[in-house]
């Protein structure tokens, strides 16, 4: 697929490939997404704003220039701003592909990092020599100020110009907790929200700290996605409950929404309002308890995002979709075109009633096949 190389969130010509539950494919203008909705459908987006998570600075012991990309945090609390997991790179330029960046100096627990106005210490080296747990000095307000003044959004080599924060905040961006943009939400603007309401469909949000999408290092990328904290507001949990009771569709805007909702639903007490940390991977064998369809970017096979789509559609459908995307010149990456994939074979609610939703149709079918 072609790389979308301009940071235009809602390109007037943005395309949407729709895969319905029977595997039927059709192309529509993405701006017409709301016209695909039925009364009662519930659209759920991730309202996380994106942090300026890329911090240039110096590894103090060696004097070497480095770039630290914040990658994870254990909660969404505004006061819990000191400890982050992070991936460390050598000094580079955003035009270089991440995989071509120089390596940083050897990193050890106790090493100090000077990142503009921010000071940090490496607490631990995690599962990879460049993946660290760091702790900032100072209070939360100082750390927010340092990030706001010194940090830059994580950059993409396929773009011609460096990204500014306004390029990566979706129109509905709220709490600044994502490390990379929940870019499926670029499709939504306020006019579309009005169209969704006019269709008598619902709109709700969760906040999910979307993590970094790629590090350029196969060993590190194999660890993705990292654990991601999320928050489900009371109103959203109520809207989901209503949709489930009435058998309406829940449509996720982006893979992060799928990950958060399905993580919450898999807990012992089921989906509740409140905070959680999504730790699971979603793939062909995952049970989908909540989400009936997902709007997402176009993803290359093999990526974790593409794997997630395999929970919605079978491989034959995804292969036909890939062929269509290539044949019709769909653009990939954050500012590219989109797909809408409906869960194959309809919602379990339609097929088997509400109780059976605890096990997805897919796993039920597999059990029968055995």
């Amino acid at each position, binding site marked *: 697929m072609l790389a979308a190389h301009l940071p235009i969130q809602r390109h007037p010509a943005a395309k949407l490939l729709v895969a319905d539950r029977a595997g039927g494919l059709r192309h529509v203008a993405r701006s017409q997404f709301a016209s695909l909705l039925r009364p009662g459908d519930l659209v759920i987006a991730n309202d996380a704003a994106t942090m300026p998570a890329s911090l240039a600075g110096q590894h103090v012991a060696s004097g070497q220039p480095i770039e630290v990309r914040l990658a994870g945090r254990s909660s969404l609390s505004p006061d819990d701003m000191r400890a982050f997991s992070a991936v460390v790179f050598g000094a580079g330029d955003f035009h270089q592909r991440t995989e071509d960046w120089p390596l940083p100096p050897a990193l050890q627990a106790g090493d100090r990092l000077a990142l503009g106005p921010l000071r940090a210490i490496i607490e631990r080296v995690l599962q990879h020599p460049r993946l660290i747990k760091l702790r900032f000095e100072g209070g939360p307000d100082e750390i927010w100020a340092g990030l706001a*003044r010194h940090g830059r959004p994580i950059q993409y080599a396929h773009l011609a110009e460096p990204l500014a924060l306004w390029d990566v905040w979706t129109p509905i961006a*709220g709490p600044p907790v994502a490390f990379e943009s929940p870019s499926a939400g670029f499709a939504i603007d306020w006019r579309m929200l009005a169209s969704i309401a006019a269709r008598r469909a619902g709109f*709700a949000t969760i906040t999910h700290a979307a993590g970094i999408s790629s590090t350029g290092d196969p060993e590190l990328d194999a660890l993705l996605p990292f654990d991601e904290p999320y928050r489900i507001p009371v109103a959203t949990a109520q809207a989901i409950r209503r949709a489930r009771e009435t058998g309406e569709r829940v449509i996720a805007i982006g893979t992060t929404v799928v990950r958060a909702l399905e993580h919450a639903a898999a807990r012992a007490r089921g989906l509740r309002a409140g905070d959680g940390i999504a730790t699971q991977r979603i793939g062909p064998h995952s049970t989908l308890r909540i989400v009936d369809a997902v709007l997402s970017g176009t993803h290359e096979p093999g990526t974790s995002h593409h794997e997630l789509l395999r929970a919605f559609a079978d491989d034959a459908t995804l292969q036909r979709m890939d062929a269509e995307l290539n044949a019709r010149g769909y653009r990939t990456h954050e500012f590219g075109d989109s797909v809408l994939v409906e869960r194959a074979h309809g919602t379990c609610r339609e097929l088997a009633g509400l109780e059976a939703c605890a096990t997805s149709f897919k796993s039920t079918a597999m059990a029968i096949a055995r």
Partner: protein
Amino acid sequence: MGKRVAITGGTSGLGLALVRELRRRGAQVAFVARGREGVDRVERQNPGTHGIAGDISKKEEIHPIAIQIAGALGGLDVLVNNASALGPVPLALLGDTECEDLERALAANLLGPFRLTKALLGALAASARDGRGAVVVNVSSDAAVQPYPGWGAYGASKAALRHMSSIWNAELEAIGIQFLSPDPGDMDTPLHALAVPDADRAALKRPEAAAVELADSIGAALERQKAGAPC
């Protein structure tokens, strides 16, 4: 949990009085002002507030300000666009007003509030959806309505802000974000002293009194939203 409020121009005049009044009422308060020293001083004098140094009239500073507001408060229920610029000092007839002075007034009084509101609209809408209520106060003036000679740059920019508030209201009523554009009256503030250096200060309204009225208006707007909320 107290309401999460952000106030621009929070180190003097009405803004400072609002920081104190809303803090007294239990709100979580973040405030913005240009000077780091003033921000630090007000933060020290009002423990628990979040001081942010930044200039809302500069495009490049809007997102750094917004990220610190939404980051420190974990969201936002009330935004008070209070920071204002007078335009030419001393006041000038429009025929004598430099274009650059008008541009500066528009940048502070119209573009800044627009940009900051837009950057924080997602956080405000999330509060509205979750039944917390969401209010934006665009501090207005009688100069937004009355054509006072000499107040051209200020009056025109405040008139535009007032009209923009009405349009925001028309567009966002269904979403549950309410815009207020109150005229707090002629107050004894640094901005008034710049405009009318020889004013009888004793005859001017105390900003503390205006802050109480404004805090009451915000509280009433949030109560109305609660009464009308679907859940």
